């Protein structure tokens, strides 16, 4: 199940303080929770439900009803938050992209070094390990981030390019310490494009759990431009 955590608008204390996992639904009746918190809670549930419903029904069949039911809200509540299915999809994509980047950056920071300082392929391996662990733990979010979007979700293409640029910048930084020469323009982005497509193939084949085993292969592939120079 996609994890829900309240990261904003939360009171410092109380049942829904920042960072605590959220329940799938709020307590019934008068609970005294501020309206803005209730709405944020609904929105987060809808974003999680979007990825889950997509995983279950696929782009061909997923509907706003599937999402609302999973999020335990009415369809009218869905439309209070999002104009249509594709708006919800875009918001879910952006949230998932932020989480992926945060996982990678967090793993690199946990090593106690900036990526640049790790050198060789160490930072790259840390980043790849973190990304593949994320995809293995959250295969629906992995599918959302890596699959080609349908025609109706054209805004997703722009969001996807932003994610590719962020990941390509991270990849480029992993080479910063031992490669003074700038990489050819666009190569890092092409490498990330190919990585996401590769991940998508594995996820589509139902191999999410085995993704972390592919980390050494992916590191070797992504490190090849540096090694082959």
């Amino acid at each position, binding site marked *: 199940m996609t994890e829900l955590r309240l990261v904003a608008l939360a009171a410092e204390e109380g049942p829904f303080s920042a960072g605590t996992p959220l329940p799938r639904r709020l307590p019934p009746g008068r609970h005294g929770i501020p309206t803005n918190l209730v709405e944020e809670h609904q929105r987060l549930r809808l974003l999680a439900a979007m990825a889950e419903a997509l995983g279950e029904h696929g*782009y061909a069949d997923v509907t706003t009803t599937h999402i609302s039911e999973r999020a335990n809200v009415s369809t009218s509540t869905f439309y209070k938050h999002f104009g249509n299915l594709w708006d919800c999809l875009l918001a879910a994509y952006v949230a998932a992209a932020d989480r992926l980047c945060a996982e990678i950056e967090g793993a690199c920071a946990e090593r106690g070094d900036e990526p640049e300082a790790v050198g060789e392929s160490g930072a790259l391996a840390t980043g790849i390990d973190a990304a593949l662990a994320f995809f293995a733990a959250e295969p629906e979010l992995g599918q959302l981030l890596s*699959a*080609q979007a349908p*025609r109706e979700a054209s805004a997703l293409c722009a969001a996807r390019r932003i994610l590719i640029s962020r990941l390509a910048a991270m990849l480029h930084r992993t080479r910063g310490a031992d490669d003074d020469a700038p990489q050819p323009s666009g190569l890092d982005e092409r490498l990330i494009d190919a990585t996401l497509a*590769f991940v998508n*193939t594995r996820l589509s084949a139902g191999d999410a759990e085995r993704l972390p085993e592919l980390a050494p292969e992916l590191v070797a592939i992504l490190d090849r*431009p540096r090694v082959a120079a």
Partner: protein
Amino acid sequence: MAMRQEACAAAGEALPIETTAPTPDSTVREGEMEGALQVIGEVGYRAASVRSVLEYSGGHRKQFYEHFESLEDCFAQAYEAWAKRLVLSVLEAAVSVEGWRAGVRAGLMKLFQTVVERPAIGRALFIEVHVAGGKALATHDEAVDRVADALDSVRNEIGPDDAPPSQTGLFVVGGIEVCVCDALADGDPNRIWDALPELMRLITVSYLDAQTAAEEAEAARAAVEEVRAKLEGGSR
């Protein structure tokens, strides 16, 4: 370093072309399949219907359902037929020239040419297949494996110390697909030619070395200029 004929021939064998003479009924069926790909590429898989396919291809609803169980079935069968043809035409282009790099470049240029000429079909084959899933997606994955195997033929020319990782072929094909999808989603399929030099650099550096990859990027750039010159000459 030739792209080995046998690798491509093996891929071709597994993807045979129908050689039986067309009948009036098979021609209608073929038209319905092309219509399904065209319409799905134009309006998207979710919005397409049997009615919209028949508006494009002509023919009758009853006859359509004699050929296919559903639009999903029609798409899956159309996908299989057209993916076979596309893979074969790309591999044929690849083996028509000498050398692995030139072969990959020729194959990619054939792919790009097809996408530019039939962008709606391209969208159906590369983008909407992920929406449809099911049998069509399984066919897509098989085609990806075949192209990856053909690319991997260069391994025979590489020493064991320099051998690329085992998943390189699949990785590179993923990069090619994203490149095609981006150009198609952009709405200007001709933009795909801009991507050829960096794509060839990615493919070459994934198997060989950075110097060869830089040379290949230049060769691809020259090839793109030739294509553009021909296009401009043709449009005058």
